[in-house]
C-alpha cells in the first residue's frame, strides 16, 4: 500500500470512479484547466476530457442546480465548491430542490457536493467555516466529514454511489498534513458508521474531521497522567452513528463532544442531547461540549487560535471530566 495524503486520497477516489462509471462527471470553478483550487483534479481534464471535468462559471446556484437536474436524469455528478463557505449561494437548489425531490416525486438524486471546509490558516470568515450542522438539519441531505485518507477515499466512493445528495466536507487543514497508507484498489466505507480512533476507558471524545487529530494529541498528553481517553470519530454527521456513541458513553460514563464549528446549534448539541436523553443512566458526569465560540472565524492568527479548539483546551476539558 502506498502512503498518500488526504488530498491525494480524494483525487484517487474521484479518478477511480471517473474511470469506472461513465455517468460520473466533475463540475466546479477552475476544476478543469487549473486542476481545482487545491489541485485535487490536477490532470483530470487531460485524462477525461472537458465534458467530464467541467469548468463552471462563478455561480454556485448554477453548479448545484445543474447537478440536481443531471442526477435526476441518471447521471452521477460531483460538484466542487472552492470553499464550503460558498455553498450558501447554492442553498435554494440544494435544500429546496435536491434534498426534497426524493420525497416529493420518488426520484433519486445521486449527487455529491465536495466542500473544502475548516480553518487554521488565517483564511478568515469566508474561507474557514464548518457548516455541516446547517445541512445536517435538512432532511434528505447526507453529511460526510472524513478525518483520515483511508476514510476520505472510501467515503467519497460511497457518496458517489449513494442515491441521495451527499455533502462531502473535506477539511482543508488535513489536505497535505495527514498521510497514511491507503489501499490502491476500489473500496467503500459505509456512510453512517463511526470508527473508534482510539480505545480508552475513562472519558469519551465524540468528534469528527480535523478535531479527531487534535483530540488525539490531547489524549496522548493525558496518557502519561493515567487518564485513558477513547476517541470516537463519527465520520458521518448525518446519518450519525448513535449506537456507537451510546456504547462509548456506556463504557466510560463521561462524554466530551468536540467540534470546530461554532457552539450554539452546532451538531454537538444534538449528540449531547441524545446522550442525555438515551444514555442518562450511564452518565457519571455532565456531558461537556468544546467548540468554537459563536462568532465568525477571525482572520488574526492569535484570534483564530483562540477560536478553534486547541490541544490545551481539550486537555483541560478532559481533565475536568476525568476528575469530576
Amino acid at each position: 500500500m502506498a502512503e498518500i495524503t488526504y488530498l491525494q486520497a480524494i483525487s484517487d477516489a474521484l479518478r477511480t470512479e471517473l474511470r469506472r462509471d461513465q455517468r460520473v462527471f466533475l463540475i466546479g470553478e477552475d476544476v478543469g484547466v487549473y486542476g481545482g483550487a487545491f489541485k485535487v483534479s490536477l490532470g483530470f481534464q487531460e485524462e477525461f476530457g472537458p465534458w467530464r471535468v467541467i469548468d463552471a462559471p462563478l455561480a454556485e446556484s448554477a453548479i448545484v442546480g445543474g447537478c440536481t437536474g443531471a442526477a435526476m436524469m441518471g447521471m452521477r455528478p460531483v460538484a466542487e465548491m472552492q470553499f464550503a463557505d460558498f455553498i450558501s449561494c447554492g442553498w435554494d437548489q440544494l435544500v429546496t430542490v435536491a434534498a426534497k425531490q426524493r420525497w416529493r416525486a420518488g426520484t433519486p438524486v445521486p449527487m455529491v457536493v465536495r466542500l473544502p471546509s475548516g480553518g487554521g490558516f488565517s483564511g478568515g470568515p469566508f474561507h474557514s467555516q464548518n457548516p455541516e450542522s446547517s445541512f445536517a438539519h435538512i432532511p434528505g441531505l447526507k453529511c460526510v466529514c472524513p478525518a483520515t485518507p483511508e476514510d476520505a477515499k472510501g467515503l467519497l466512493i460511497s457518496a458517489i454511489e449513494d442515491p441521495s445528495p451527499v455533502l462531502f466536507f473535506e477539511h482543508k487543514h488535513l489536505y497535505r498534513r495527514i498521510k497514511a497508507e491507503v489501499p490502491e484498489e476500489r473500496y467503500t466505507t459505509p456512510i453512517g458508521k463511526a470508527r473508534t480512533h482510539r480505545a480508552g476507558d475513562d472519558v469519551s471524545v465524540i468528534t469528527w474531521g480535523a478535531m479527531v487529530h487534535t483530540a488525539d494529541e490531547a489524549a496522548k498528553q493525558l496518557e502519561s497522567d493515567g487518564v485513558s481517553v477513547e476517541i470516537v470519530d463519527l465520520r458521518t454527521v448525518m446519518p450519525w452513528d448513535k449506537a456507537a456513541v451510546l456504547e462509548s458513553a456506556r463504557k466510560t460514563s463521561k462524554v466530551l463532544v468536540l467540534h470546530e464549528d461554532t457552539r450554539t446549534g452546532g451538531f454537538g448539541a444534538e449528540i449531547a442531547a441524545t446522550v442525555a436523553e438515551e444514555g442518562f443512566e450511564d452518565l457519571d458526569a455532565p456531558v461537556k461540549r468544546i467548540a468554537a465560540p459563536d462568532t465568525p472565524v477571525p482572520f488574526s492568527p492569535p484570534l483564530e487560535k483562540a477560536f478553534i479548539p486547541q490541544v490545551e483546551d481539550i486537555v483541560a476539558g478532559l481533565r475536568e471530566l476525568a476528575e469530576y
Partner: protein
Amino acid sequence: MATETAVDVVMPQMGVSVSEGTITRWMKQEGEQVEADETLLEISTDKVDTEVPSPASGTLTQILVQEGETVPVGTKLAQIGGTEIGGTGTGDGAGEAPAPAEPPEPAPGTEAAAPAEQQTAQASEPAAAPETAAAAPAAEPPPARASEAVSGNGKAFVSPVVARIASEHGVDPSRVAGTGRGGRVTKKDILAFVESGGAQQQQQQAAPQAPAQAPAAPPRPAPAPVAPGELLPGEQVEPITAMRRGIADHMRRSIDTAAHVTSAIEVDFTRIVAVRAGLKKEYQAAYGVNPTYLAFVAKATVDTLRDFPYVNGEMRGDSIVTRNFVNLGIAVELQEGKGLIVPVIRNAEAMNLLGLARAISELAGKARNKQLVPDDVQGGTFSITNPGGYGTFHGTPVINQPQSAILGTYALVKRPWVLEDELGNDVIAIRPIMNVTLTYDHRLVDGAYAGRFLFALRERLEGWEGDGG
C-alpha cells in the same frame, strides 16, 4: 517603523492548504543590506513558486535555512538586524530575536479538590448536645470512611450511573468512599466497592436489624437521580449531607431494632454542688480542667454500670454480650444543627473524676478542632447525652446501636423539695434537682432492672463521697 530589535523572516503561508515550502534561491547573502519589501528570497510550494519580500530594512545577519531545503510554514528562515528610522547605521543584529508572543498557556486542568477533612464540623460543648444524641457514624462498622468528605456536598450528589449501579447491587452509595470532586462517589468507586464484596457486606449488616416477625422494611430506595421536584413559594432546598444521611439511617434503624422505654428519676445535687464548688478552683489551678456536672454524672454512671452489666451490654445475634469495661460515649452536637457525633472515652471504668473530666474536655476540644479520628468514635458500650443546656428537664433519647441504653441528663433546677428533718417532720427546702433518664432496650433490660440502676445511680450522686477518687 524602527526596528531596534532583530526581525525574523519566516516561511510564509502561500495558500490555504500549503503546509511547507522549499527555498530555491537567496537574493541576499549574510551581511548584506536589505530594504523592506525588497525581494529577499524565492520559494517553491505545492501550488506556487514565488518571491518573498523582506519584512524589514536592515542587515541580513543570519541565514538559517539553505537553498534546496524544505521546511514547514512558519519556520524561521533568517534574521534581519535592526536599523533606525531613515536607515542610518545598522544594528549589529547579534541580539536574540524576541520570541513571538504566544498566548499564555491556559491554566492546567482544575486540580482535584483538596481531600476533604474529617467530617466533624465544629462541635459545641458536650454539655449542649441535643437529646437525639444516640446516633453516630461511630456505631457503623467501617466498610466505608463515612467520616470523610462532605465538603462542597460533593459526596451527597449521586450521578445517574452511580444511582443505577447502587440500585442494581443494593448498595448505599453514601457509605462508599468517594474519590471524585468534593468526595463524590464515582462510577469507578462504586464498581470497585461492589467488586470487593462491599455490597454483600452491607446487606449482611442490614439483615439482622430487621425484627424477625415484623414485616420486612422496604429497602431504602436509591437516592433519586433527579433534582427534587418543584418547590412551593417560600420553600428552600439543600442537599442531604453524608452525615445527615448517616444520622437518618442510624436513627431509623435504632427505632426499628430496639424496644425503646424511658424511665426517669429526680436527683438532689446539693452534695455535688458543694463538692464541685470545693474542687473547682483546685482542678482549674492544678490541672486546667473544669469538673463539670457531666463529669460527676459520668463517674457515678460508670461505677453503677459495674453492678448492672446488661445496661452496658449488647444483644449480638443470638447472644447477650456483657463486659468488664465501659467505653463511654458522650454525644456532641455539631454547630448549628449540622449533625452530631458520639466520641468515646475508652476504659472509662479505670478513670477517676479528674480523669473523666479531662477526657470529656479533651474530646470536646478535638471535636471542636475537627481532630477526631475514626477510632475516637468507635466501640462505645454505653452513651450519655446531655440536652439540658437549654433548660429542658426531660426527654426520650434514641439508643446508639448496638448499645442497650443511653443516659439523659437535663437542666439542674432549684426546686421546692420536701424533706424530713432530724425529728421526722416534713420540711420544704430549696434544692438543686436534676431529672435523669435511662432509655433502654426492653428486649434486654427489664423495667425493674432499669429502675434499680437509676436508684443506685441516684444514691451514688446524692451520697457523693470524697472527691470522686
